[in-house]
């Protein structure tokens, strides 16, 4: 990898903070050089922050604009198609949500990464927030023992066009931190959906989602619950790990605080999560909200340079996508149990390479799977 990594941004949806973070990184070895976005309005911030960078007419042009790596914004149709295009051109990818809109896309994503040898990372700044970082530090040190039960929730505000597809779109953000903290691998799941009484017009939402709940069993024997929605309160994220010797969680209503307790002495403490001293010192003058984004970019570029591993590789991305997709399908089918494919194995990939079921719109905008329980 070159001394200076030239970054491109493809799709600026939900990337406002990432752009600001890239500008605030203060890392001369990372330079933002170009972008493309299908909605021209979003490029305004980009131009303001990076006046010398190019605004490309299409993704192909961006791929040819001399970039060393690309950051993909969230995409209503999933990011797999664009990710594969860039990987085929030898350009490593930091992808937004949803990594794959269908199991077939998840298969294609893994095959492309393997055949091209090009790097891929599924990035969510939620995994780099202070509380999740602290939870991972505590879990890794081993004082809690092994996880028995974990929960991840992402309850969004429903103000964007992804509202109707929140269970899959934001479900990935609810699950990823749990996998990152514990290192567990999902094995099977069951999903259930609630009948949605909500009147979307009265609530001012674009569409009601099905509010599914996903229970999954992991290879280590733990059970996780994952949920994402735009239709329930209180809004926000919540992550909790219940383990053999104790538990740690973000405080409900105070997402940057951590609540930690051990069984042995029955004492529970709640405190503000903070990054380590080095990070805190380096980004002292930076807006706190941007620090998770900066850490995500640093993790990505550090991995490209071989300085750190990648806990968010293409197989993790495919697994996350399959959990939220199958979880919704399970819920719509009254709780069928689904195994989670191991996308590292080609014989298993062959079973899913033609499974194009998706609640996200395809290239022609057609959705072939409902994302709400009401019509079922």
């Amino acid at each position, binding site marked *: 990898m070159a001394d200076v990594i030239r970054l491109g941004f493809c799709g600026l949806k939900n990337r406002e903070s990432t752009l600001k973070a890239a500008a605030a990184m203060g890392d001369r070895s990372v330079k933002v050089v170009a972008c493309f976005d299908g909605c021209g309005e979003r490029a305004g911030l980009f131009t303001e922050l990076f006046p010398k960078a190019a605004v490309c007419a299409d993704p192909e042009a961006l791929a040819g604009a001399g970039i060393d790596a690309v950051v993909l914004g969230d995409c209503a149709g999933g990011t797999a198609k664009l990710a594969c295009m860039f990987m085929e051109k030898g350009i490593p990818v930091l992808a937004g949500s949803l990594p794959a809109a269908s199991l077939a896309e998840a298969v294609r994503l893994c095959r492309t990464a393997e055949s091209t040898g090009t790097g891929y990372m599924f990035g969510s700044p939620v995994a780099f927030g202070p509380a999740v970082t602290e939870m991972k530090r505590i879990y890794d040190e081993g004082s*809690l*023992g*092994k996880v*028995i*039960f974990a929960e991840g929730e992402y*309850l*969004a*505000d*429903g*103000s964007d066009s992804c509202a109707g597809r929140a269970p899959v779109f934001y479900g990935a953000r609810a699950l990823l931190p749990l996998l990152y903290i514990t290192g567990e691998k999902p094995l*099977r*799941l*069951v999903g*259930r*959906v*609630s*009948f*949605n*009484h*909500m009147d979307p017009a009265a*609530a*001012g*939402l674009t569409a009601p989602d099905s*509010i599914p*709940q996903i*229970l*999954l*069993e992991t290879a*280590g*024997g*733990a*059970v996780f*619950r994952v*949920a994402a*929605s735009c*239709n*329930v*309160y*209180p*809004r926000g994220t919540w992550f909790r790990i*219940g*383990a*053999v010797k*104790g*538990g740690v*969680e973000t*405080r*409900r*209503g105070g997402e940057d605080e951590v*609540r930690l*307790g*051990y*069984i042995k002495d*029955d004492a*529970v403490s709640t405190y503000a999560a903070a990054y380590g001293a080095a990070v805190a010192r380096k980004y002292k003058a930076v807006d706190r909200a941007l620090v998770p984004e900066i850490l995500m970019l640093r993790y990505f570029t550090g991995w490209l340079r071989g300085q750190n591993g990648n806990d968010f590789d293409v197989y993790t991305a495919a697994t996350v996508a399959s959990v939220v997709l199958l979880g919704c399908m399970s819920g719509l089918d*009254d*709780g*069928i*149990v689904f195994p989670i494919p191991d996308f590292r194995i080609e014989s298993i990939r062959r079973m899913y390479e033609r499974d194009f079921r998706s609640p996200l719109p395809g290239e022609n905008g057609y959705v072939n799977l409902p994302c709400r*329980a009401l019509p079922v």
Partner: protein
Amino acid sequence: MSTDRPRIGVFGLGRGCDLMRKVNLCGGQLVAVCDRIPSKLSRAEEYMAPGGGYYVDFDEFIQHDMDGVIIANYFNDHARFAVKALEAGKAVMSECTAASTMADCVALVRAVEKTGGIYMLGENYPFTASSQELRRIYLSGRLGKVVFAEGEYVHPMSSNGILNIAPWMNEKDRELYDNGAAPILHWRRWLARTYYSTHAMAPLMYATDLEPRDVSCLAACIEEEAEKDSRFAGDGAAPMLVGMSDGSVFRVAGSCNFGPAGTWYRLACTKGGVETVRGNRPMIRMNFPDDRPTPGVTVTEQCYTPDFPEAAELAKNAGHGGGDFFVVYNFIRTLRDGMKPYFDVYKAVALSEMAIMGWRSALAGGVRFCLPDLRLESERVKWENYTFTPFPNNETGEPPTMPCCTRDIKTNYYGDIDPFEAYKARVAAEAEKAEKEVK
């Protein structure tokens, strides 16, 4: 019936002692007690009415002249005693769980209907101040309709901690167990994780007036932890997704063995959310947008500590956050004033069915099971002989008829050895070790 001060008998003086102490306080009269361990009977002397009866035989106990019976014996063995008491013309308040097999659920419902007797489940967690507040808030309509709820009872206990509250490890009870046989039968060793779930679900039912209709469950089994556990039920947790009578979905987990300890309840509704504060159960946290909703803007959050809606001074000093007071108080009022019990036999067996079918789901890897409506005789006949249970038979000593831990089906843990024989050998070894330590 002595309506001024209903006459109450208590069966089972382990847990029953907590309830026994509330009888006189709540306007009843303690007139008889029964426990098969004679040394426990003296625990009632301080509270007993003059001329009260002390029994070791249940069949003799229920012939005592009294209006109602509190059944507080072994957790998995309430139903057959409740049926006998009903058939003897006594009102029944049963500790949870109402029944541990589907056959017992059917027998219980039939006994209540046939005798016209009063049956009440003495589930205490719905009656803490915060649980009662959840009901008040939800039924006010302020938060709209519930779409998702959670209830959990996290009570981690080490193997030794469990065994210390089981008989035989307790010096005073050793007199009955010198043959080493009884400890193996104690229900705490065999408690499949879904069975002790009424504390998790009942407050949600009480808050919303909903009942469970179906269940899916996955059990968490950390194999190396199960290996170290001297109980046989080695799963750490068995969270259930329960479909409710209005289409909402509740996540319920009872008797979880991870940390930190505590109960928690939350209702996620169409117009807001309310929950008990994690780690501070008496407190409520309520969250809802204002009257001119702006997407994403949650304007109002309130945190406060509610008080009991009635009898606060009496309830405050009772166990389990005041719940112990209210279950006895409500039973007395049922007998004295004709108040209808909230957790009647149908709600009681619904909770038991959720546990039983939830366990079936866990053993089947998460398959969804519907809960039969036992108000219908056509459903009862399908289940009247379903006696599968993860508990050994307390009376006959017969082994369980289904695993109590998913480890036993996820791994070939015992190989060719009969699991029950393996359990007995293990208990015998523990008994021998403990004997040496005492000497």
